[in-house]
């Protein structure tokens, strides 16, 4: 039971990290990133591949953040020229392009077979203790990122970001050039997703392209929107709520007899779809979000 709770906690914190990254991009700056999973995947594969070469895990995690962040640079530059709905589709297409590339370039990624046997973080501590240590580390990372986001949002830089989201033309009229800030925020959010990917890779210890489908992106969106985008509180509680939702559906299987594993996956997807529709219709500011933005 402890092991189960610990595993759930780790996954919840990984989603939390993803949601905090998306919150920087969308919540603060209104950059619509529908490709969260691409940066998550690239982080996971970067860290996984490096660790298999014997690189120390700490460096792998750093590399995951750096590579994912750099990968966001061209998309961030593209975002300067696009209205939000175009950016949404471009990032969605990007995430699918990344997934297909991972699947096809088997010389590097082992293709659909995936990368098994990745080193587990804190493995030398033994099974249960290593998970506990990972949970604690993630907790610290999420806390630092959450605190950093709150500080950032309150700083002049953060107010600038909010202003970009609220009224970019007005900001430009005041003589500020929002372009570089947008790119920076995009890269920062992507780097966080990359680190989240590294945590995922070294917790699950087995990654395949199948784990990085667009659905993951929309799990994160659902968490952020349910919680209330634009606030750290919303991102954190939203991802916890998401976890209740995802894990709850696992238990729901026991109450719905005669539904196969595949059927249950379909029902879960249906529930995600319905939740996305209902939240945007009836709770656009989320459960924990502030007033209308």
């Amino acid at each position, binding site marked *: 039971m402890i092991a189960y709770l610990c595993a759930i906690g780790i996954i919840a914190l990984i989603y939390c990290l993803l949601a905090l990254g998306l919150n920087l991009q969308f919540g603060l700056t209104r950059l619509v990133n*529908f490709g969260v999973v691409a940066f998550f995947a690239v982080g996971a594969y970067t860290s996984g591949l490096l660790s298999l070469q014997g690189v120390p895990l700490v460096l792998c995690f750093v590399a995951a953040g750096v590579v994912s962040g750099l990968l966001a640079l061209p998309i961030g530059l593209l975002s300067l020229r696009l209205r939000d*709905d175009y950016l*949404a*589709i471009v990032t969605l*297409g990007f995430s699918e392009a990344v997934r297909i590339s991972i699947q096809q370039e088997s010389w590097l990624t082992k293709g659909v077979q995936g990368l098994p046997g990745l080193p587990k973080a804190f493995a030398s501590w033994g099974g249960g203790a290593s998970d506990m240590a990972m949970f604690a580390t993630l907790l610290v990372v999420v806390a630092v990122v959450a605190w950093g986001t709150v500080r950032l949002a309150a700083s002049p830089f953060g107010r600038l970001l909010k202003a970009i989201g609220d009224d970019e033309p007005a900001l430009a009229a005041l003589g500020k050039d929002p372009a570089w800030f947008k790119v920076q925020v995009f890269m920062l959010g992507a780097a966080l997703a990359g680190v989240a990917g590294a945590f995922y890779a070294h917790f699950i210890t087995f990654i395949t392209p199948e784990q990085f489908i667009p659905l993951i992106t929309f799990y994160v969106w659902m968490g952020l929107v349910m919680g209330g985008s634009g606030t750290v509180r919303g991102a954190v509680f939203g991802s916890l709520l998401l976890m209740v939702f995802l894990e709850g559906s696992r238990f729901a299987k026991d109450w719905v007899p005669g539904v196969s594993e595949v059927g249950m996956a379909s029902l879960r997807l249906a529930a995600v*779809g319905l939740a996305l*529709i209902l939240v945007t*219709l009836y709770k656009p500011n989320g459960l924990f979000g502030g007033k209308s933005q």
Partner: protein
Amino acid sequence: MTWIDFVNLLINGLIEGLVVALPALAMTLVMGVNRFPNAATGDMLTTGAYAAVAVQLLGGWPLWAAALISMVVTALVSAGSYTLIFRKLAGRPMVSSMLAAIGLGFLLRSLIGFFAGHDQRTFDLPLVRAWNFGGIRILPTDLAIAAVAAVSLAVVFVLIYRTSFGRQLRAVADSADLARASGIRANGLMLSLWLLVGALSSLGGVLLGMKAVVSPEMGWESLIPAFAAMVLGGIGSPVGAVLGALLLCVAQELAVPLMGPSYKLVLSFVVLALVLLVRPAGIMGRVQLVR
């Protein structure tokens, strides 16, 4: 690659382009009038294809009849989605409509997966041999697909450019306020638009299923190509959507010998990104719709 291979790829690209033009046109119509990219368009395709499969399985009807029934079913689903979801999100930030559209897509796809399973299905079609003109192969089925797509595109163009429905639609697309001020009743018009868009998507799904196979993911996989085609042609331009689809699919087919078929979607994405960078208005569009 000999010139015969080249011609074969070209023909295949043109046929695929005519099929992709249907969802691209459906998307561009919604984009022009309701101002958001309907990410559920792909799953409307899937809905149409499965509705036709179901009619064939249950009734043993010929494909053309099944396709007609599935167009009616999908048109109703589409109009229902407008009434229940997208009408209420009008005036909200665009990302709301997009998220809801993604949610709707998930919902449709998962319901299909739940009730019909995830196995690939095919339409009940007679097997025919390809005509061979000295190495240039043409499947009669492909020819039928191209003809149906071309005729339905022509019908939509007549609707848009030659009827009062089309004139009103274009008026709303140009300026919703002005259109309302001049007495155009938006509600009925919107319902007709979404019925049309649903029927168009359904037909796209059936044709796509005839060309390849029917699976719950088929529509989602055509979302990015349809979007790329729409952007390539210019947002809100129906002619552009068709031209964009033809160009994109021909380019995709010609690239297959170089990159293999798996990278088709990646090529769509690259085309999309390049067009947005170099010529955001597309071939036929106006720049203010993009930025």
